[in-house]
């Protein structure tokens, strides 16, 4: 062997600070890799870290609401923005699914929990109790809203009442409801609503501009309500803001609160 030296001329590089072009290209590469890592970190933040922050805020809001209910102070007809107004249970999402609903739908309110659209009805009242919630991150209270079926219970607890709403018949279920799904025990009190409510289905996907889904009569702003509805809104599809997923429910029962008792809808599952 006559060539005992390194097979590539100039390799390995002798000096640390050799070629300026190489240094510049390496710097650029490092920058791009770093940018990629930052984007991945952002996804991690959005999907996990915001949940940790929100969980702490939600715990605090719940403690405050419990306190208000216990001592009766701070109970007002027009709660200020960010104040807890009710607790929401969805037995179909599991026995531990409970969120404190706050007044208002600003970003900083929704970071704590589901937010009540100001100006829409209060829980249990005639009209439309409308609530927005995050689907991804920030505690993602409405992560699984798309999995709700007709007749699933949405239970709302206020300072003095339990209100039991159930999801309205979905699109395509209304025909033959009375002889079909309407006969199931959990569907008592749920039926396709007549008259001005004829077009209100349990679940719809709308454009972000369609504010009338939270009108007293959904889809028909300005008309006087004759029913007590609940409306939940979140983003759709997941990770996107192109559309909104809307769930409408109707009040089927309400109970005056008794110390230490929970409504049968919560104790017997969905």
């Amino acid at each position, binding site marked *: 062997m006559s060539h005992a030296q390194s097979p590539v001329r100039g390799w390995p590089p002798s000096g640390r600070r050799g070629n300026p072009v190489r240094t510049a290209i390496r710097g650029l590469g490092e920058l791009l890799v770093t940018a990629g890592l930052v984007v991945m*970190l952002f996804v991690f933040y959005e999907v996990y870290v915001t949940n940790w922050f929100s969980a702490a805020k939600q715990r605090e809001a719940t403690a405050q609401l419990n306190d208000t209910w216990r001592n009766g102070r701070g109970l007002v007809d027009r709660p200020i923005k960010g104040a807890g107004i009710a607790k929401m249970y969805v037995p179909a999402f599991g026995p531990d699914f409970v969120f404190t609903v706050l007044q208002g739908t600003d970003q900083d309110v929704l970071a704590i929990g589901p937010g009540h659209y100001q100006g829409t009805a209060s829980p249990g009242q005639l009209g439309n109790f409308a609530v*927005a919630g995050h689907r991804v991150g920030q505690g993602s209270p409405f992560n699984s809203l798309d999995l709700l079926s007709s007749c699933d219970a949405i239970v709302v607890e206020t300072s003095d009442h339990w209100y039991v709403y159930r999801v309205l018949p979905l699109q395509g279920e209304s025909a033959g409801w009375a002889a079909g799904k309407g006969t199931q025990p959990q569907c008592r009190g749920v039926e396709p609503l007549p008259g001005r409510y004829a077009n209100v289905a349990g679940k719809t996907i*709308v454009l972000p*501009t369609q504010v009338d889904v*939270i009108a007293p009569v959904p889809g028909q702003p300005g008309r006087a309500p004759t029913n007590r509805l609940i409306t939940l809104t979140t983003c759709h599809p997941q990770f*996107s803001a192109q559309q909104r997923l809307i769930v409408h429910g109707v009040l089927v029962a309400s109970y005056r609160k008794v110390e230490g008792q929970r409504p049968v809808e919560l104790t017997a599952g969905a």
Partner: protein
Amino acid sequence: MYSWIWRHLPGPRAVKLVQALVLVAAVLALLMLVVFPWVEPRLPFNAVTTG
């Protein structure tokens, strides 16, 4: 960039390593606590209300 930072950290290798970890932690904290919370509402991932 990273080698430049490494060269400019003072002390022996172990001390450099500790400083580098502190730097990484500081950058992470800055991103998670300041930058991302500021950026988030400006991105269209999480609009859940109508109107």
